[in-house]
Structure formats: C-alpha cells, structure tokens
C-alpha cells in the first residue's frame, strides 16, 4: 500500500475488511477482504451488481456496521477499534450522508432540515440557519427556504439533502444512490453540486448503478461478490474523453490530485 502522500493524508483507509452476516453454520460472507483508500478531494464512484456488498461496505466505512475482520480508519481515527460513542463523535466531525430517499424531516422547512444537523454539533441555531440559507441559496433554492419537503420537487429535495450533508464541512460525503429518484437533467445538476464540493477538498464516495455518473467521477471502484473487481480512474480524471489509465485489479498507486476541476458552478 504505497502512497507518496503518506497514509495519514487519506480521508479513509480500509484494510482487509471482511463482513459476515449471521453466525456459523448459517453465516453469509458479504465482504471478502476489501482494501480501499480515499484521498482528499476525490469523487469515487462505487459500482457493482445488486447484492455485491456496496451498501454493506459504505455502512462499515461510515462506522454504522462493525467489520467482522479488518481495519477502518476514518479521518485519522481507527473506528473499527472504537466504541459506539467514539465512532459517533468521529462521524459527527467527518461525515456527510446523502440517501436515495432524501430522509428529510417532513415537519421542518428546507432551512431547518439543513440547520438542525449543524446545530447538533453545537452551532447556535441562528448561526446554523444563516449558514443553511446561504448554502441553499447557492443551490438555487432561495425561493424555497421556508418550504417543507412535501412542497418541494424530488430534485429540490435532493439538493436540500446535499446541503444538509455538506453544511458541517465534512471531509467525506457518502452518497448511496442519490440520483435514482431523479430524472437525467436533475441528476446531472445534483452531480454538479457534488463535484463542486469535491473541488473544494471534500471527498465523495458515491454508490450508484448509473454508468452515466462515471463521467463525473475521478475514480471508479467496482465490487463483485464482496471483492474489489476493478479500481481505476473515472472519466472526470481525463477531460479529453476516453479513460486513459485503466487500472485493473489489483489497484496500483494513482496520481495524487484529480486532474479536472468541477464543470462550472
């Protein structure tokens, strides 16, 4: 595992992650020793057939599941060796989440859905609301600040959810199928928002079945039957078209910085 920036520079490092459901003899092994490093400012698309273990893997990377074996270091903390309270604290300062189904509080306005997450980490609510409004305004939702999720379109809801994921300035945003519920153009605009944050230094791990999202990615990791079957550059890493360096499994060291910036703001 050589990395010229040093291991500590990675937002996330997973080593030999094994995950097994159930207990013998009725156990199902879902992950068979996954290694994965996520560098700062990198948008990684995690693909793979249904049932290959994507959701399980990101749950482990986020500390929501404990690996059966292996090590996970998130934001410099070895969460696989921590208790629940410690992992919670690491998540709070390191992670943002975007889900396919948004998971916005139906009773809260767009602003408060974003602000309350910030308030969780101790920011006074007035400051949090200020920041939430500014962020939502940048996301083109200035006319929807006081609307509740029920009054927003799917695309608008997902933009609120992304604002919520990044309002705490997390080092890593994990997104599980964030564009499934959206049509093509809306999905593209959501990707643009994510890309913009990647260029500002945040890393994104994006789980998807949508091959079109590869176009906006710096790196593509494919899981198959709980193993990394492919780990290579995404198309955003090469602005001139076809993927240039297919790094076939096992992965080899990659260039230190993503080549391309975000496409517009």
């Amino acid at each position, binding site marked *: 595992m050589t990395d010229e920036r040093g291991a500590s520079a990675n937002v996330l490092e997973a080593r030999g992650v094994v995950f097994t459901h159930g207990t013998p003899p009725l156990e199902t092994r879902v992950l068979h020793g996954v290694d994965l490093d996520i560098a700062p400012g990198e948008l990684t698309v995690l693909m793979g057939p249904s049932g290959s273990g994507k*959701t399980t893997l990101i749950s482990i990377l986020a500390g929501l599941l404990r690996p059966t074996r292996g090590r996970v270091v998130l934001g410099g903390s070895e969460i696989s060796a921590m208790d629940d309270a410690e992992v919670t604290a690491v998540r*709070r300062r390191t992670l943002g*989440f975007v889900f396919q189904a948004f998971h916005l509080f139906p*009773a809260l306005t767009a602003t408060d859905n974003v602000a309350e*997450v910030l*308030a*969780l980490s101790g920011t006074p609510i007035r400051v949090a609301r200020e920041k939430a409004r500014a962020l939502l305004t940048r996301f083109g939702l200035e006319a929807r600040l006081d609307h*509740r999720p029920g009054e927003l379109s799917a695309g608008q809801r997902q933009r609120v959810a992304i604002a919520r994921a990044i309002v705490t300035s997390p080092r890593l945003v994990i997104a*599980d199928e964030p564009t499934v519920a959206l049509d093509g153009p809306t999905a593209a605009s959501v990707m643009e928002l994510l890309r913009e944050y990647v260029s500002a230094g945040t890393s994104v791990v994006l789980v998807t079945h949508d091959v079109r999202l590869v176009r906006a990615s710096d790196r593509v990791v494919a899981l198959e039957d709980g193993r990394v079957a492919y780990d290579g550059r995404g198309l955003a890493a090469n602005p001139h078209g076809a993927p240039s360096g297919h790094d076939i499994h096992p992965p080899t060291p990659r260039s230190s910085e993503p080549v391309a910036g975000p496409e517009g703001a």
Partner: protein
Amino acid sequence: MHRIALQTLLFHRAKVAAALAGVAFATALMIIQIGLYEGLRSRASVLVNRLGGDLWIMAAGTSMVDDSELLATGAELPARAHPCVTSVRPAIVAWVPYRTPAGARHTLQLVGSDLRTAGPTHAYVPWSFAEGLPQDLLAQDRVAIDDGDLSRLGLAPPLVGSTLEIAERRVEVRGVTTGIRNVSLIPMVFADVETARTLAGAAPDGATYWLVDLADGSCGPSVARAIERDPRLDVMTREELASVTEEHVVTESGAGAALAFVALLGLVVGTVIVGQTLLSLVREHHKELGMLRAVGASRSELAQFVAWLSAFVAAMGGALGVILALLVQSGLGGRSVELHYGPGAILTGLAAVLVMCTVAGAASLASVLRLDVVKVLQ
C-alpha cells in the same frame, strides 16, 4: 432536538390531537375523581366540623356521626365536673320519620344544637341561611330546611311559614338554608336542641352527643378517661370523629374504590392512547432519525427527540386537563355533586400526566434506542 420535536408535533396536528385529548381527559378524570372523593369526605364530616367542640361524648361503638343513639341521662356529668372543661353542649343527630303534605312517609336527618349559646364561642348550625335567622328557630316546633330538599319534603315556596309533619308532630318552617346536604342525600332538618329533643323522643336533658370545649387541649385524655369509666360511652376528639366518619362513608359506600378504579382506568386508557401516538410518530421518523445517527447524532440525542415529544404532549395535555377539570367544577356549581380541588388533587393530576407520558414514551424510546440504522436507511 426540542425544535425538531415541537415542529413534528405541530406538523402532525391531527395525530397529536388524539394524544392531547388522551392526556387531557385522563388528567381531568383523575382530578375530578379526587375532587369527588375529597368532596365526599368533606361532606361526610361537615356536620362534625360545624358543630365544633374539642371532645365528643357518644354511645360506645359509634363509627360515624350520622349513626349513633341517644345517651343515658347524666352522661355529660363527669365532663362538667372536670376543671379543664369550659363548656358542655348537647347535640341531637337522629333519623326521624316525616310525612309529606301528600301523605308519603319517609325518614329525615334531624340535627339539633343549642342555638341559645351559639355565637361567640362556636358557630351556628345550620349555616348558610337563605331565609330566616338562627334566632327564628328558638321557639318550640320550629325548624329550618334546605332548599335542595323541597321535592323530597313535598314543599313548595313560600317556604317560611309552611308546615311539615315530623315524628307525628306539626312543625313550622322558619328558616331555609342552601347547599347543605349529607352524603346519603336524605333531607336534613335543623332545629334548636329543645325542639330536636321532642322530635327525637329524647329526655328534656337528653342528647345523642355531648360536645365538650376544653380550656387546654392537653387535658383531653384526662377528660376522656373520666367519661369513659362508663362503658356505655366513648369519647373522640372532633378530628377523630370527622376522620372515622369520612373513612366509614368512603369505605362503606365503596366510593373510594370506585373513584380510584375510574381514575386508574383513565390513566391506563390515556397511557395507551399517548403511547400509540408517540410510537407511531417515532416509527414514522425512523429513517430521518437514522439519517441523524449516520451524520453523528448519538443514541441519547435520538432519545431526546422522544423525550421532548413526551414532554410537550405532557405539558399541553396536562394544562388542557386542568382547565377541563376546572370547567367541569364550575359547570357543576350548586348541584348535588361537590368537587373539592385541593392542591393534592391538582398535584396528583399532574403526577398522573408525568406517569402517563413517561410510561407512554418508554415504547418509543426503546424503538429509537434499538434503531438499526443500516436497516432503516436501506
């Protein structure tokens, strides 16, 4: 989390209204039942407390003020001889037959006290005159009745000057009281002790009770010992007689148990309604709560969401319940039912709210503490 909880409650108004109604009704029910209970107790002992006295001399075995018998002549003499005793007053409390003008025969409760000596040292019985004065009862065969008993006595206004047949004697109504009732709702008729003795068939110096006033409360036991040398006599302090009378009424009537049962039932039903509402609200938000957990909310922060929901429901429902109970009380003003809300009733009502919302919140709390984040977020 309190803001999220409050917004959630406001957003799901219809659902929350059910929980609030549950808390409010259970609280009001609790307060009203205690009010009824207290009302019953105070009605049971009102006669004792109004007649006053430090010690009461009564027939041995007396268990409540309404149920005693005439004492043998001279029962009060040891008391009169005791240096600590300042006065000894007769009282008649007896069940006597009466006949309505229409000819129906029933029983009434006759209360006679010495109206001649009443005034500076002890209050007049009866109290709360609507018509007439205590002095109007000072001649033979004059009585006061309560305006709540008119139909039972077969009387109609004008009351003062009308006549009634009690114990085969014709008596004249010279006073009308208002709001005086005993626990059995049998008519109460008041008279001076002279008239009462005649109607109750007592000797000219007879009494059902002798009320003893003491110069010094600490000599009570010594006075009681002197009187109780006669095995046919018992002595109780006024407080004791009031309390055994209350106990007797409450247990004999089964009212205490019935009221407690209804209150408990209200508590259980209220708890179930609130519990169901909270649980369904919390279940509906499992995904959002899971999301908060994923971005770093602790389990205790999720628990706070439930705690705040419960707290808001308790506060709003409890306030509504107290208001409801007060409305019922004012709506019942002057009826035959009496509600006494002491601080105890209100405090118990609020304690009930606390118990209800705590127990009701427990299931919801368990559901968020056991929340499987990975599962709910899939």
